[in-house]
């Protein structure tokens, strides 16, 4: 009953085509944005900004990128972290080598560089599918890291290959505190998430989904496979590249190529699996889950050992966290293979009727 659309009439085309056609959805999103932009900065403390909210947003963006590629276009990719690395290092280089370059332009250009890399390593997808493609994207992952490590130009010939992100300055305003960086990240992520949602509703998105479901049939009805697949790689890598640039500039401050290793790629893959493959909301939910879970486990265990007064060897705790993490992944796959986003959809369906039984 809460979620009923009855009574909402659309009388113009634009009303019909809007992203959130149901009023409740619009209210919810509006509230969410207000909370994110206004309430959270007033309420949260520095720990939350620096250690939880900013990485959550950055990983959501990367998960969004991967979701576009794997969830919507069906091309399994394990090279996400490599694209993030390209974004991070190229953003650093643009800022460093072109004096006076506005940072947002650097981010966009870094994203475009990541797109270029994505297109190159997406070429195999024209011939290879499924697992083979996933393993082939590992080639991208290892090659990019090797190149960043080996060619000193990328890290300005520092002896260790570590880059230190510079100041973030937009129209003279310096983004320094954790709260400011959070707001900047939030702004960028909101814009890009909106763009992604719109894109997936459009003809491009439909082409992606057609290719995902059955690419032979898609080519039969006239969808250009090569362009579609490469476009998917390009857009996805763009998102991951921007996420990588934000990772370096707004979160860690210094990065080395090793920070973008295979482990990170898997992490982002887990985010979209648990959150929901093929769903924009799912990327956010999955990112929240994976970001918060280790912290939650660690706090819980700390609390337990406090309560019980027993000192559990920390090695045990860390290993148990790992086991729980793995089990949760398997559990989610068994219980809800479409991810948490599906659970949300189901609850929306139920909200249509509640509190009435039918």
């Amino acid at each position, binding site marked *: 009953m809460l979620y009923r659309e009855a009574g909402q009439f659309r009388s113009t085309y634009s009303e019909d085509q809007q992203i959130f056609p149901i009023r409740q959805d619009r209210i919810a999103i509006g509230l969410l944005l207000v909370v994110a932009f206004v309430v959270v900065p007033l309420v949260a403390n520095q720990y939350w900004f620096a250690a939880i909210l900013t990485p959550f947003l950055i990983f959501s963006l990367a998960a969004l990128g991967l979701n576009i590629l794997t969830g919507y276009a069906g091309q399994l990719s394990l090279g996400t972290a490599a694209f993030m690395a390209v974004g991070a290092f190229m953003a650093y280089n643009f800022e460093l080598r072109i004096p006076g370059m506005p940072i947002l332009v650097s981010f966009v250009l870094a994203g475009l560089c990541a797109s270029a890399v994505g297109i190159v390593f997406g070429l195999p997808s024209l011939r290879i599918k499924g*697992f083979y493609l996933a393993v*082939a994207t590992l080639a991208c992952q290892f090659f990019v890291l090797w190149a960043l490590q080996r060619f000193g130009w990328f890290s300005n010939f520092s002896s260790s290959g570590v880059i230190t992100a510079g100041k973030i300055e937009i129209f003279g305003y310096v983004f320094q505190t954790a709260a400011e960086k959070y707001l900047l990240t939030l702004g960028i992520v909101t814009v890009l998430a909106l763009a992604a949602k719109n894109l997936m509703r459009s003809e491009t998105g439909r082409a992606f989904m057609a290719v995902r479901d059955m690419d032979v049939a898609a080519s039969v009805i006239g969808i250009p496979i090569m362009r579609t697949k490469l476009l998917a790689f390009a857009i996805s890598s763009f998102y991951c590249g921007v996420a990588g640039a934000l990772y370096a500039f707004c979160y860690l401050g210094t990065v080395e190529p090793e920070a973008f290793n295979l482990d990170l790629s898997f992490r982002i893959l887990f985010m979209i699996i648990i959150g929901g493959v093929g769903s924009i909301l799912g990327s956010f939910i999955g990112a929240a889950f994976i970001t918060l879970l280790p912290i939650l486990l660690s706090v819980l265990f700390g609390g337990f050992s406090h309560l019980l007064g027993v000192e559990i060897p920390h090695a045990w705790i860390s290993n148990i966290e*790992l086991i729980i993490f*793995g089990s949760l*992944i398997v559990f989610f796959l*068994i219980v809800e293979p479409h991810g948490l986003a599906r659970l949300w959809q189901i609850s929306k369906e139920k909200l249509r009727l509640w509190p009435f039984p039918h």
Partner: protein
Amino acid sequence: MNVSFFFEVLLGGLLAGVMYSLVAIGFVLIYKASGVFNFAQGAMVFFAALTFVSLVERGVNFWFALVITLAVMVVLGIATEKVVLRPLVNQPPITLFMATIGLTFVLEGLSQLVWGSQPHGLELGIQDVPMESLAQSSGIFISQFDLFAALVAGILVAVLALFFQYTRIGRALRAVADDHQAALAVGIPLKHIWAIVWAVAGFVALVAGLMWGARNGVQYALTFIALKALPVLLIGGFESVPGAILGGLIVGASEKLAEVYVPQMLNAPLTEFFGGAVNLQGIESWFAYVIALLFLLVRPQGLFGEKIIDRV
């Protein structure tokens, strides 16, 4: 160019490739029989090696420890099949793949929880020293242990081949690999077969774990071996044991030759071209993958894999 050095690199690479194949065979077995790409194979190798070496260090006799570890791996395989795979039976392959990644984390945590995180040495009685006779006569250093590993791999492949060809269970496994539904139709108990397959894969993991553990020591980094086996699978095909061997040889040899000769040949010209120091070391980290990728472009199913047929 020193010819004997070239041979040394080549031979060393081939032997290293055989070690990769040992791990790849485990993947192949499971994929053949149940269509699951078991990413947890690396963790299984680690778990097997760690269990064995921990038992031996606690004073258990070598052969006895081997038997116990084998039993543990069999139990692990059966448990995996029951808990992880059976509930996910009709899911798309990607979901199963993800589940095995989750399994990897569980196994890694479990191994270190039970046996601790200290590294261990593993002695199999074969010293990892160059063969004296060969070294003296031609100056080529080939390790005794590498030859032993090649022998073990050969025996393993032969045993598996015999198993699949001539035993009833082996034939049943091949039937299941061919077509699940048809196998069910003729009365082959699918669940038992899958349990057996995972048990056999556990055995192969144990062998691979022993070999790799003796080579590098048993520690967490052993799980990364799986990443080396993936290009082997791409080249050899996911469903073929001889393909795994051949793929391993190709990967091992090309990787080592590239690592040694590409910097030697390309560093100088590229430095001139770019005007700054260019150093192409470390190619090993991605060379195998790129070779596999190029291979796939020509032959998408690998050397001996089943042709992929897309039905619309």
